[in-house]
Each structure stands twice: as C-alpha cells, then as structure tokens.
C-alpha cells in the first residue's frame, strides 16, 4: 500500500467531510476509511469519463485542439458577445469563483451559479426574513430536537447523520442518538423518514400550510381545524409542543421546500417559524446545500458584488435580478448570446427549452469530466478535479470555510479551473 493521507476533505456534497483517510499509490486513489459510498465513487472513479484534451467544434463535431487555441477561441467568444452568461461554479473552488466574477465584469456579462435552481428560493426568503443559523457543530453539541423537512440526507448527504446531526455525541449530548428526537417531514417515505422517531407524511405542496399553522400555534394562536396538509391537528400540536420544549432545536430543509409550489414562500414560512421559536427556546435552521461549494459561490459573489446569484455586469457595475438575470430565464427566453459553463451541467438539469438555446449559442465549458453540456459546447477545456488534483477553498453548507487539498497530480498540461480562467481573462484583456 502506498502513502495514506489523513484528514482529507471530500469535495462532493455540502457536508465537506474533512476526516477521510485516502491511500494513494501509482496514480490510483483508494479511500481507506470514513468516506461514504458516493465519496468512495468520487475518489475511485476520479479519472473516468474525463475530458481527454481541449476541443473545439468544427463542422458540427468536437475536435482535438491545443490549450492555447481553446483559450483563444473562448476569449474570442466571450469578447464578441453582447451579453454572455457565466454559469456554474458550485463544483469548483472559490479561487475559480473569483476569476468568474472578474471575467463577467470584464466582458459585461451575467454571472449566475447553480443555487439559481436549488436554493435560490432560500436566498430570497433569507433576504426577506433573515435566518437563525448555526454551524453544524452546534447541532452535534446541543441539538436535542432535529427536524428534517423536505430533505433526505441518507440519500443526498450520506455522512450528515453520523458526523453532525443524528448519532454523534457532543458537548451537551452525551448519549448521541438517544439524546435526540428526530422528526422527518416529507411527502414520501425515504431512508431518512424510516429512521426518524416521528414521520409526518404531508400532501405534496402543502408545506407552507403546515409551517404556518405551527407558527401560529407556537405564538399562542388557536387553530380550529381537524387536519392540515393531510396531518392531524393532534400530531401538529404535539410537534409544536416538542419544538417549544426542546433546548436547542434545528430544522434542516432541502429542495422539498424550495422546489415545490410556493418555493421561496415555503422557506419564508420556515424561517419565520424558527425565528419566532427563539422567543421560547433556542432554535436554528440550516439549508441542506447540495454541491460541495455552492455555498462558497454565494459567499464569493457576496463579497465581490454584494449579491449571491443572478448578477449582471452589462452596465459596468453589479445588478441583482432574480428571475431576470437567472440562467434559466436568460436561456429559455433566448436573451444571452454566448455562455461559459464552469463545473456544472445545465444541459442535463435545466428545462429543455433552456438547454436548446445553450446549444444554439457559442458555449465554452470548463470541466474535468464529460457532461451533457460539454457535448453541445463549442469549446471544451479540461481541468483538474478540485480537491483531488487541485487545492482551493470551499464553504461547507453551514458557511465554514475549508481548504481542499491536492492529493495527486493531474495529467501534464491539465490546469486548475482558476488557472484556465486566468488565461482566458488575460487573453480577453489582450483582445480588447
């Protein structure tokens, strides 16, 4: 066995587990311990399905080219555009995010990041109500009531339960799982709901109603109904009691709130509920962020532009436009005339009407791996896998910044995302 590295950070999901043991031998990586199965897959398969070399589209097909030529072409596309879109970011490091903002400013385009189609409603609700937040260690150390609402960590954030929220022992949680009441609220049964002490199965699209009634109850109001959102008032009252009587409660919520009817209003209801609970006890709320650095993308955009996503630079200064400068809107309406996609796959995840426009306009993709978007792009530039072949900063779902390490060298000539972007920036400056 080769060298075993300790306390390696996993760059898959928003948990950013930083205690992995990874063996590296002859260019192969093998997780030794503490990695979840997705993480194992990430490390073991990091070199599969890679973009083999820089490519540009010629006569309808992607052909091999030099890095220099690919950079030239990318710079040309972005410089010529009257309104380019830079999109993605969440699966890359903050050093690359910074360059994306710089590039967007330089070419007078829009920058948007994947939060736009996952937790944008959370961000908008946060901007209306505020968010009573905690780092995950507070949950580990204090939380005696843990509620998973519209999220399923046992499928999406596999180590969340054991590292942060359910089983770990902490400063004031000496018995771990036994000291906690776990509640799951979902429209369907999941691995998470199966292990919860209480599972409220609600009707799809009725989260708002349930949250709102809970809030009225904890504020001492009466609700004269038998059922809300398919849940009996008895069960709702019981949950409200538990919320008020816990020491330090938490709601973890996911796309079950942000993607269903009501979107940001669902989250506003949740944020308001948690805020008001602080009149009675301590209660916090943490959104389950998906990609490992989607939080970081918002953080970097925040300090450089003031806004977390959907930021336009066409007038030379940042402007915020949810629903206006958002990638799905811009593409589906056919408004942008070029795109650069960093470490994301909109063609696989966006409504097809948006992807169609992406296929029509000149598109540059920077990604270590082949994605659907790379298959429709005009320029594809391979890059190193952050957290495996390149270092950099990522922000965990709760905002804690962690440095990703490089554990193996990339193939010769393969650069980190931020280096590729810097080359494009330099070239654009030269072109203009």
């Amino acid at each position: 066995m080769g060298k075993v590295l300790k306390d390696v950070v996993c760059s898959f999901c928003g948990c950013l587990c930083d205690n992995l043991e990874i063996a590296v031998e002859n260019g192969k990586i093998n997780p030794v311990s503490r990695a979840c199965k997705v993480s194992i897959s990430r490390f073991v398969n990091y070199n599969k399905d890679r973009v083999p070399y820089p490519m540009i589209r010629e006569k309808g097909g992607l052909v091999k080219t030099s890095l220099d030529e690919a950079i030239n072409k990318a710079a040309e596309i972005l410089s010529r555009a009257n309104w380019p879109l830079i999109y993605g970011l969440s699966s890359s490091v903050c050093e690359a995010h910074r360059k994306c903002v710089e590039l967007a400013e330089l070419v007078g385009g829009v920058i948007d990041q994947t939060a736009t189609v996952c937790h944008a409603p959370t961000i908008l609700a946060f901007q209306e109500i505020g968010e009573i937040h905690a780092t995950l260690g507070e949950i580990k150390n204090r939380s005696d009531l843990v509620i998973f609402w519209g999220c399923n960590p046992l499928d999406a954030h596999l180590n969340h339960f054991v590292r942060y929220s359910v089983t770990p022992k902490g400063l004031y949680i000496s018995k771990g799982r036994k000291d906690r009441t776990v509640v799951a609220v979902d429209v369907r049964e999941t691995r998470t709901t199966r292990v919860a002490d209480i599972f409220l199965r609600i009707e799809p699209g009725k989260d708002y109603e349930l949250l709102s009634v809970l809030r009225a109850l904890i504020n001492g109001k009466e609700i004269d109904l038998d059922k809300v959102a398919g849940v009996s008032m008895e069960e709702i009252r019981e949950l409200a009691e538990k919320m008020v009587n816990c020491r330090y409660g938490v709601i973890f919520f996911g796309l079950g709130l942000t993607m269903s009817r009501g979107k940001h209003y669902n989250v506003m209801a949740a944020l308001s509920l948690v805020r008001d609970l602080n009149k009675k006890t301590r209660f916090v709320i943490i959104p389950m962020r998906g990609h490992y650095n989607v939080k970081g993308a918002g953080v970097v955009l925040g300090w450089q532009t003031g806004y977390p996503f959907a930021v336009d630079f066409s007038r030379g200064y940042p402007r915020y436009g949810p629903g206006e400068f958002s990638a799905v809107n811009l593409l589906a309406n056919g408004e942008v005339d070029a795109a650069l996609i960093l470490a994301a796959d909109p063609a696989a995840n966006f409504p097809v009407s948006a992807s169609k426009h992406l296929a029509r306009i000149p598109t540059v993709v920077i990604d270590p791996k082949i994605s659907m978007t790379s298959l429709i792009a005009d320029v594809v530039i391979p890059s190193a896998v952050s957290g495996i072949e390149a270092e950099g900063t990522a922000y965990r779902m709760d905002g804690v910044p962690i440095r990703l390490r490089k554990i193996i060298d990339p193939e010769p000539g393969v650069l980190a995302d931020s280096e590729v972007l810097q080359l494009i920036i330099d070239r654009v400056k030269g072109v203009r």
Partner: protein
Amino acid sequence: MQGERVIIRNGFVYDPINKVNGERMNIYIENGKISEEFKEEGAKVIDATGKVVMPGGVDIHSHIAGKINAARLFRPEDHKGDVVSKTTNTRSGVGYSLPSTFTTGYRYASMGYTTVFEPAVTPLEARHAHEELIDTPIIDSGLMVCLGNNYFTLKYIKEGEVEKLKGFISWLMKAVKGFSVKIVNPGGQETWKWGKNVTSLDDKVIGFDVTPKEIVTNLARVNEELGMPHTIHIHCNNLGSPGNYEITIETMDALRNIKPVKGRKNVVHIAHSQFNSYGGKTWRDFSSGAGEVADYINKHSHVTTCIGQVIFTNTTTITSDGPWQYRLWLLTGNKWTGADVELETSGGIVPYVFRKRNPVNAIQWAVGLELLLLIRDPWRVYLTTDHPNGGPFTLYPQVIGWLMSRKSREELLKKIHKAASTRTQLPGIRREYNLEEIAIITRAGTAKSLGLKSKGHLGVGADADVAIYSFNPEKDSTSDYEKIVSSFSKAAYTLKNGEIVVKDGEIIGSPMGKTFWVECKAPQEQEIMDDLEKTFYNYYTVTLTNFPVQFDYLPLHEPLKTMV
C-alpha cells in the same frame, strides 16, 4: 514603490507622534518608507502647498471582512442605490452601509485611510475573513479574534488553568493568523446558546460556572503576559441597553490592577463606548451616561476607547452579540439574522435606521460626541462609527466636522429630537478639536494603541502611508463644517507605501494591502496539544489538521513579535 523616490513638498504637516504640529515641511519617501532628506533630482514631487499632510488613517475598529458578508447577502436593498462602476484600474462593486470588498478598499483610501482592523473574527471562520482581505485592495489590515466566549477560554478559566489559556491563545493567533484578543459580551454569547444572557459582571455563564468579570480579567492578564501588541478589545455586556454605563465602568474598574506589559500603560480598549454609555432605566427615561464614562477614563490611564459614533442614516447592525441582536429584532421588528458558531461565538444582523426625530437615536448621536469631547486625552479616544453599526465609515468626515465646529453641532441639535439637548451635556460643551487632535484620534493614537510601530506617523522608517487633504489651516475656517467634510471625504492625495493611490479623491493605483498578525511563542503551547486534539475530535466538526489558516490566504503579510 520599490526604488521610487517621492517628495511631498511644503504641506502643513500633522505628525503628532513626532510632535510635528502643522509646521510647513517636506516629507521624503524612498522604497516605500519615510526617509531622511534627499536631493530632489529624479524624485517625483507632490506639491502640498496650502494643504494638510498627515500619516495615512488607521482605523481601529471597522467590520470589513468575514461576518459582514452575511449582511451583504442579507440586504440587496442596501446596495441598489449605491453602485460603483469598473474603471480601467478598479473593479466594480456596491457601497452604502455594506460595501463590497473592492469598494471598501477604494473608499477608505479615498478618505486617506491606509490601515483598517477587522474587529470580530471567529476562529473557525478566520479563513473566510482572510479571503476577503485578499480582495480588499490598498489597505493593510489585521483580524481581532473573538475569545470572550470561546470554549477553551471558559474551560481554562473554570479550571483555573491560566497558563494553559496563555498557551491556547498563543497557538490560536498563529493558527488563524490573528492580531489581537477580542471579547464580545463576555459570557453572554455562550449563555445565549441557551436562550439567555448575562447582565452583570458576576452572573454565571451556563455550563461553565465562570463570570464575565473572570473572563475579562483573565484574558487581560494573559494578553499582557503574552505581550500582545494591542490590549484586549472589549465590547461590554449590556450593549445598547439603558443604564449600561454602570457595567462599562465596572468592567474598566475590574481591570484597573492588571499589570500592563512593559512599554505601555493601557490594559484594555473599550470598543464603541457610545453604545455602552447610556443612563436611565428604560427606553422612556433613556439618557446619556457619557459624563460618567468620560470621567472614569479621564481619571484612569489604563483605558483606551473608540466611539462608535451614530450618524443619522439607514445602516446595518452586525455584532457577535447574539442576545443583543435578538433584542434589537424584538424592538424594531426589522428582519433578523442570527448565527451561532460551535464552541466560539454567536452573532446577528438587523438593519437599522437612526432617525433625527427619534429621542433615543438623538441621544445616541449626542453620547458619541460627548465622549469624544469630554475625554480630555485624545491619545486614548478614537474616532469610529463601529462601521456599519453606527453608520458607514464613509461618513467619518461628518464626525470630524462636528468635532471641529461647535457651530455645526449646535445647528444639528436644533434639527433633531430635543432629548439630545435636554438629556445630554452636549449643548454645554464648548470644546472644538484642532487638526492635531484630529490626527491623533484618526491615526496616531490608533496606531499606538494597536502597537503598530510603522503606522500612524511620518518619522524616518515609517511606512510611507500619507494622506494629503485640501484644507488650508491658515485660510480655511475650522468652523466651516462643509469645507471640513469635503476635504476629509476626498483626499487630495493618498500614498500607500510611497505609491500614489488616490488623486483628488479618485483611485489611480490599487496595490494589495498586507495583513498583520501576531507570532506568539509561548512555551505553554505544548501543554495544551493533547487537549486540543481531544476537543477537536469530540466537539468541533473540522479536524485539528484542517483548522489552521494556510499562508496561501495571506499573500502579503507581516508577523509582529510580541512585546516580551
């Protein structure tokens, strides 16, 4: 800039540390430092005739990195009306109460400030603050690290292990590349994690059985024994509450007998004392307690303070004082964000508008000026707005105007709620600051309090950070408020390490600033390593390996030695 020589000719120089008080003289710069006189040949000459020349401004307390970012994201409405376009040599951004990082650097520089300290960084998120400093151009900086509610602080005090506490702080400063010890609502943040607060110096912190008094006295002692360049920096208990001047005085008095490190007299800096100098018992009989606080400070040399002046504007309150931000939400009904950080701090954000016609706000405005005017020794009182809590830093020139022009204070007093006249001493205060005193409260005094030898003065060997203002002390009236405000808002020139970065208030150069941090070398560090490992494993959610901030985050930095 390296090798370049600059002469600033014939300005009225205010360099209080070197006892230069408005004399007309030349300043010589070589290799980014103030130098001995040299021949003009080949040097760049800046004509400062009829202008004021001062060392670059040094801000001791301004929230510019780290926690402020949550507030930026929280308040898109704050940025919309104050946008900053890109230029050929500057990046774009947004301003008002929560300027983006680039804008923060530019706006400080255009006011002649070249050094700004971020006063509330939680260790676990220090990496974030450093990341933002990288993107904050021109100004030098340093991070004050919140320790008043840290698990190790509370635990070691509880166990009576002061030496271990010393070891911990020594290790931590290196680990997070921190500059000094900050204490916010000692004991209150930890207690807030159980939904409560501490309200007297003798209350017990839940779970630790220690008191705020024990926290501040032990940290002060350790700070001085370690020989930290800056004293402990305290945001006192009961901030923002009626009658809190008493606990402010009690806090200062609890530290009276701490032995300062050789080379200074002070052992404590009271941050934004304006927010902690209130009389009365309720919001109805709210009044000023500034007289009492100023009186104590006048009689005791162990204290320095900055003000946290309130300005009538729409701003954002951001503190690590979790329970206070909760209360402010209850009081205002404005949106509220809170944040607990494991084993370290809590905190929050609430937007706030200081209104002229609101009696409490009018008194708060007066209290800040009372403190600045009643504390006699300018070396121990500094100008801040606790940016953005009392108002954005961009409005400092207004405060300078009120200090220099009694007339301007009296005019504003007439326009605001009469409580400012009836429940404070401000109307009766005749004192007006002169330019030397302004130079002390904005650069010389702050640099000294921070223990920065290379800042705040224009003596040979100092960093060539210079501000030149279009104010002619021989011609312009010091009671001309408008002239003062315009002169100090847009520096005629700002030089950073000898490079001209601002001309006529506009940014023409944008070098990267450096970060000061303190390299302690306490032998006690070794004693705590086992403890650290155990605690990280059991209670933190990042490993001890991944906790320290790498030098990648400090592309330009200057480690300072301790004073022992």
